[in-house]
């Protein structure tokens, strides 16, 4: 597991559903390259006027900061895959819908980190963030603006730390079964 992540943040609200993260019209493939080009495509532009993807389909963000219940809805693993393919390494949320969380952890795809603090005022879309993962996870705003220079504690991974360490459930199980050392 990486000990430090850096990236521009994209800030969104509560109850971001899997249909917004990756619409069902793209579920006929699991190709990350295709899914990444449609990540967050159906986010409501009235609520989120800054698009997640640029017009050419690229994404300049590395971290998503969300409110409560991120990833609610479907069991589609296409959701964390699409985010990761677009360039997202970590999602920080007040809480996660359980299947999204499990897919992120078990698939070894993006890091799901929970925050007990509401970070929606501490970061704005486009701010630079650094996440330190050695010891207790911490996110800091590294931007040169009035929000910059502050750090916020995130919750520990708890019992899933071992799976995250291993790189996902497959590697974790193979280790347990003695298939890999």
């Amino acid at each position: 597991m990486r000990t430090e992540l850096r990236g521009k943040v994209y800030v969104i609200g509560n109850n971001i559903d899997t249909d917004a993260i990756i619409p069902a019209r793209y579920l006929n493939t699991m190709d990350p390259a295709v899914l990444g080009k449609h990540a967050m495509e159906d986010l409501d532009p009235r609520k989120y006027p800054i698009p997640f993807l640029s017009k050419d389909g690229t994404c300049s963000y590395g971290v998503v900061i969300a409110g409560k219940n991120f990833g609610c809805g479907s069991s589609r693993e296409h959701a964390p895959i699409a985010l990761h393919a677009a360039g997202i390494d970590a999602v920080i949320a007040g809480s996660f819908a359980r299947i999204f969380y499990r897919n992120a952890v078990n698939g070894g795809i993006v890091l799901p980190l929970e925050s007990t603090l509401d970070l929606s005022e501490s970061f704005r879309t486009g701010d630079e963030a650094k996440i330190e993962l050695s010891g207790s996870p911490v996110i800091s705003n590294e931007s040169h603006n009035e929000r910059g220079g502050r750090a916020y504690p995130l919750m520990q991974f708890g019992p899933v730390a071992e799976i995250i360490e291993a790189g996902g459930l497959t590697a974790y199980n193979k280790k347990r079964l003695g298939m890999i050392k």
Partner: protein
Amino acid sequence: MTGQTITEKILARAAGKERAVPGETIDARIDTLMMHDVTSSGAIKLLKKEFGNKVAEGLEIVVTPDHYVPNKDIASAILYQELARFVEEQKAKGADIHDYMVEGGDYGVCHVMVPEKGHVLPGQVIVGGDSHTCTYGALGAFSTGIGTTEAGNVLATGRLWFRVPESFLFEVDGEMPKNVMAKDLFLRVVGEIGVDGALYQAMEWQGPVISKMSMDERMTLTNMAIEAGAKSGIIVPDDTTIDYLVEKVPPKKLDSYITESCGGGMEAEIQSDPDAQYARTMKIDASSLEPLVACPDLPSNVRPARELQDVRIDQAYIGGCTGGKWEDFVAAAKVLEGKRVAKGVRLLIVPSTADIQRRLVKEGLYDTFMDAGAVFSAPTCGACLGGYMGILAPGEVAISSTNRNFRGRMGDPESRVYLASPKTVAASAIAGHIVGAEK
């Protein structure tokens, strides 16, 4: 020692432990894995690439392609083909695999097919690559949705980790008004607690209204558990459950299950203790229910149908794992009998399984719907998730007996979906605007 909930007992047994305490992480043995067309391809590849293509012993696999079948495009056809090849390959290897492919015609929407074909037993742990796998809790099983990597690992190991959920108890008494269905009851609950109101928890339903409720209606309650963020929904088995099992499960399988798994009787092990601990309890008087509608873009955005009469509709949809069961059509047909849909309204009838479709024809409901101006589809998840067979254009409005109304759920992001009971969907189709079913 305090008592345990049915969920804690099932998970303790699956983990080979005395007790399973909420919050603790356990490694549970999985009885059954459900697989469908959209989420299985990666799991099949993972089994081959990482685990030598060997399925865990003792794991029952039920394969029910449904999302994009009959195949809607080439990419979907390839997903289906991969699933079909997996079935043949694993059958040849002697895996305990039961398939309901489109070939031969006996197929349908997973969460209606799996119980209908007798693959759910009380006390089992069932997982599936679909979020509405929580449906099977209606029969007293612990069941929950998982992802593709997880499905691949379950195929290989027959086990999966879980955080033991706290339970949230819903006690329902009173008398359900005649124009109200289980869908309205769930909408009332999710409207109150929100789409994360039962996050990570098991929603357990009890009370005289639940005891009297049919299995089809119970499945609406447990199916929708995920819409409140829950891990599972569950109802303790009773006579209704046993009658259902006797009808659906092959006698040999049922007998060996009762003698081997339940120590001779189903009652003892698979129920919640009177002093079980619940994180939260909510009491609901069913007599106070009325037809409800979840407005865009969340299932929790609930309002009484009577307040939404100015919402004109383009499409009325009766189908899906929540609202395409036999009794859903019986309820809708009663409303539509001898009536016609309003001008400009498309009424789509999508039976969830081939058996339901056949019964609709046999018992004359097919004619009722056709005479009312409905359009029939073959069983499929179809437009419920915006797949095909009823996609909405920008600005169009649908009322649907399905379970989700997220932005763009049934088509264009600028279309709108309202969720309601099959009765309310039928009444709205006749009126051309949203209206609750009459008493």
